[in-house]
């Protein structure tokens, strides 16, 4: 829980990757999914989630869909065509970053 700052720079990649595997998701669902996948290690607050979603939307990587869910409206986010391409780029950048970090923090072992 103490390493939330380390995850901060990866939030957009996390969101894009989740949307790549889930077609469309709403804000609360994203926070819960991340919590579930990381077994509570990563807790995305609304103060971090919405600025990241709005930035991705402003950059044209996400599109919005509105649906009626019984007694209220719900806003879903989904990847645009550019968003799908950018997800692949960002995930590959992230893998490269992880490999570099692995070499730096644990030089004796290599993934290759």
């Amino acid at each position, binding site marked *: 829980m103490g390493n939330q700052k380390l995850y901060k720079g990866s939030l957009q990649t996390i969101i894009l990757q989740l949307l790549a595997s889930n077609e469309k998701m709403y804000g609360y669902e994203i926070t819960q999914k991340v919590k579930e996948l990381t077994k509570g290690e990563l807790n995305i607050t609304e103060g971090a989630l*919405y600025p990241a979603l709005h930035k991705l939307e402003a950059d044209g990587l996400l599109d919005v869909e*509105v649906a009626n869910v019984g007694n209220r409206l*719900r806003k879903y986010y989904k990847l645009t065509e550019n968003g799908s391409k950018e997800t692949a780029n960002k995930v590959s950048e992230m893998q490269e970053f992880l490999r570099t970090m692995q070499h730096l923090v644990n030089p004796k072992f290599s993934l290759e």
Partner: protein
Amino acid sequence: MELTKEQIEIVEHYLQNRKVEYLDLKVEILDHMILDIEQFMNKNHSFENALKMTTIKWEQHFKQRSSFYFGMFYAESKIVVDKAVKEFRPFYFLYLAAYLLPMFFLKNSAISFQEQEVNLINNLLLSATFLALIYMIYIIIKTQLSKQKSTYRFILKTQYIAVVFLIIPLLLGSFLDHKGQLSSIFMSFLSAGFMVTFICHHFYKKHQAVIEKYKRV
């Protein structure tokens, strides 16, 4: 546990009091808050307690703030201003470039026209400015009359003042000086005026798209 219609109205009323009236944000914040409250209630908290805990969590995002990009007179909830800045930032730099580049370019290399061309060029520029002004007035009236608010409408509101870039050259009536040279100041005004018209057109279309999207549901 699902909230009742009356309990949802209480949450909506709370958001209304915090001036979260922008359609594109209100829908997702309301939905998220309701789910937060339901989660607390599932852990055996009363609705009142769950609402209180949820509002404490959200309160910081509803504090009033302004931004350098829009000026201190345009204050709104933090979450609204933050989203507006993300949308507007690239256009702010386009706007600055549109104002500064003609001034810089014409100061360094003057563009002159022959006597018989001066009136034609001036009239063409005046007509284009007049058309841009009419379109800006149309956007202002249409968005002001629109009952629904969106973050894009907030951005538009902050840009209305820039119609002075179109009005001033129109009032003075000449883009060229007595030597037939394009005036660097008026061309900068004109370029900034056209850029603002383009920016307002862009955000007006986005505002309309948001209204349309939510109306369809």
